[in-house]
């Protein structure tokens, strides 16, 4: 099947997914409200933290908000495209995953196209409002170059976080678990990146730069936009976000396919 045909089919499947989701409008609205509440809660915690101390490292409240909002913005796209990957284990356990294997399609594609979670509207609303506030407070000048850079960072962030979700879902092929991995590994790891990486021990910074490249989601790009120092790393790291994203997602896809072939030999 050609790429163009796949893209056409993707939109068909996705629009079905959206229509299915809109059957539950009340739940949909409540989820958006819930997410905005949760993120506002974290922002309030940051504000309380800096109420007495003024700065964290050399980051002030609004700089931290920017860092936080960038993470949430790319996470919003991730939720749309990949968030359902975390529950691959449920699909495997109750046997519904087999459905994807009796169809003449690439299973990764088919699984990805199955859901399109538009409730991430909450993430977009939150992060865009924060961007506007922070831009005024820090008097940021948004040139075309900077906007393009931001776009690249978002693409990179989506691919990196999406890649990690894909890897986590692939664990289900080996361990029959994935959702839990999300809550115990990726959720805390994402929380780490809400704060400037410079405050963490060197080995953590090293891991988030080269192993699980979360640093490229928001920290490195933010240091470029806000002209912040990056101890241990050159200050142009942020420019590599899209590249790192593509490479990491490629790796994730490879691992997923490896897991799938293992699933086919063990069936569990």
């Amino acid at each position: 099947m050609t790429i163009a045909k796949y893209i056409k089919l993707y939109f068909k499947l996705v629009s079905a997914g959206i229509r299915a989701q809109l059957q539950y409008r009340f739940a949909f609205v409540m989820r958006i409200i819930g997410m905005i509440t949760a993120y506002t809660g974290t922002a309030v915690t940051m504000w309380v933290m800096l109420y007495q101390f003024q700065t964290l490292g050399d980051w002030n409240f609004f700089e931290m908000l920017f860092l936080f909002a960038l993470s949430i913005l790319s996470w919003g796209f991730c939720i749309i495209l990949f968030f359902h990957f975390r529950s691959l284990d449920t699909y495997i356990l109750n046997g519904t995953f087999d459905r994807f294997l009796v169809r003449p399609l690439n299973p990764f594609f088919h699984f990805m196209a199955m859901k399109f979670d538009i409730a991430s509207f909450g993430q977009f609303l939150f992060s865009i409002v924060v961007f506007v506030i922070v831009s005024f407070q820090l008097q940021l000048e948004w040139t075309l170059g900077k906007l393009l850079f931001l776009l690249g960072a978002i693409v990179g962030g989506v691919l990196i976080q999406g890649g990690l979700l894909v890897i986590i879902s692939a664990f289900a092929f080996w361990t029959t678990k994935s959702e839990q991995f999300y809550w115990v590994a990726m959720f805390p790891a994402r929380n780490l990146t809400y704060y400037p990486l410079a405050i963490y021990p060197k080995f953590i910074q090293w891991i988030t730069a080269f192993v699980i490249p979360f640093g490229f989601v928001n920290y490195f790009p933010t240091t470029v936009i806000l002209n912040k120092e990056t101890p241990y790393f050159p200050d142009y790291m942020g420019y590599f976000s899209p590249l790192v994203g593509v490479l990491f997602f490629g790796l994730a896809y490879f691992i997923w396919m490896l897991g799938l072939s293992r699933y086919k030999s063990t069936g569990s």
Partner: protein
Amino acid sequence: MNMLEYEIVLKIKIIYGVQGMSSWSMYWTFTKKAFLRSSVYRFEVWSRTGSNIIFLLMWGSIWTALYAGRDEAGGVTFTAMLTYIVVSQFLDGVNEAGTPLWEIQEKVRTGDISLELMRPFDVPLRYLFADFGSVAFYMITALLPLYLVIFYFLDLALPTNWLTWVYFIISACIGFLIRYCVEMTFGLLTFFLVETGGIEDIFYFAMSLLSGSVIPLWFFPSWLETIAVYLPFQAIFFMPISIFIGETTGGEVFTSLGLQLFWLFVCYLVLRMVWNRASHKVVVQGG
């Protein structure tokens, strides 16, 4: 089920309760069962420990950066503050070993809890005793060894007086019970709401910020501190940890414990009220 059947169920409960001097031994069985069952979920034990360590590392780093080399801020030494965060993460580990909020909600939605109404035991008490079992297992296999190592290697301020240890343990236990009541109450709200979206986020927010689990109340802006003081959440983390690091001493300890008992009483009453409403709803409207 009509009212008559409801009364029959109640009677069965009363009869069992009266016959059951063995009632406590029945609850004790739930504890033992939960203890043994925890071991089956070995992955959960490891993973929860992993995420606990990540959060400890995060908050430790944040407070180190906030102090920025100073020995003291707002009258609290850096060592005391670091101890505060470590103890807080320990208590967080203890609290997380119990039945989580989403599981209670799930049990309400699937009707598991409604089914348990038919059984001759008190449902909130049954879950509490089961939690004792899973908490004990998690403490023995993961939390205690981990935190012994952490306390050994980090330069933390341990209480020197054994009485402080006793007060801390009592205070932490009351805190655990308060959290149980609050969480169960929030979980039971699922009985009355079609969608709980915002509710659980408010719960998690209160649990992390207003309880003082990540920022002690004395660093709050005064208006927020006032709000937090008049809420039960501070009794879960802030009060026991303050006793541990010696911020609450002498007669204040007893005021603090008394206040905790008061909150426990209030939260228990609220839980009972919500529970009675919920079970009434189940038996009259079928859940």
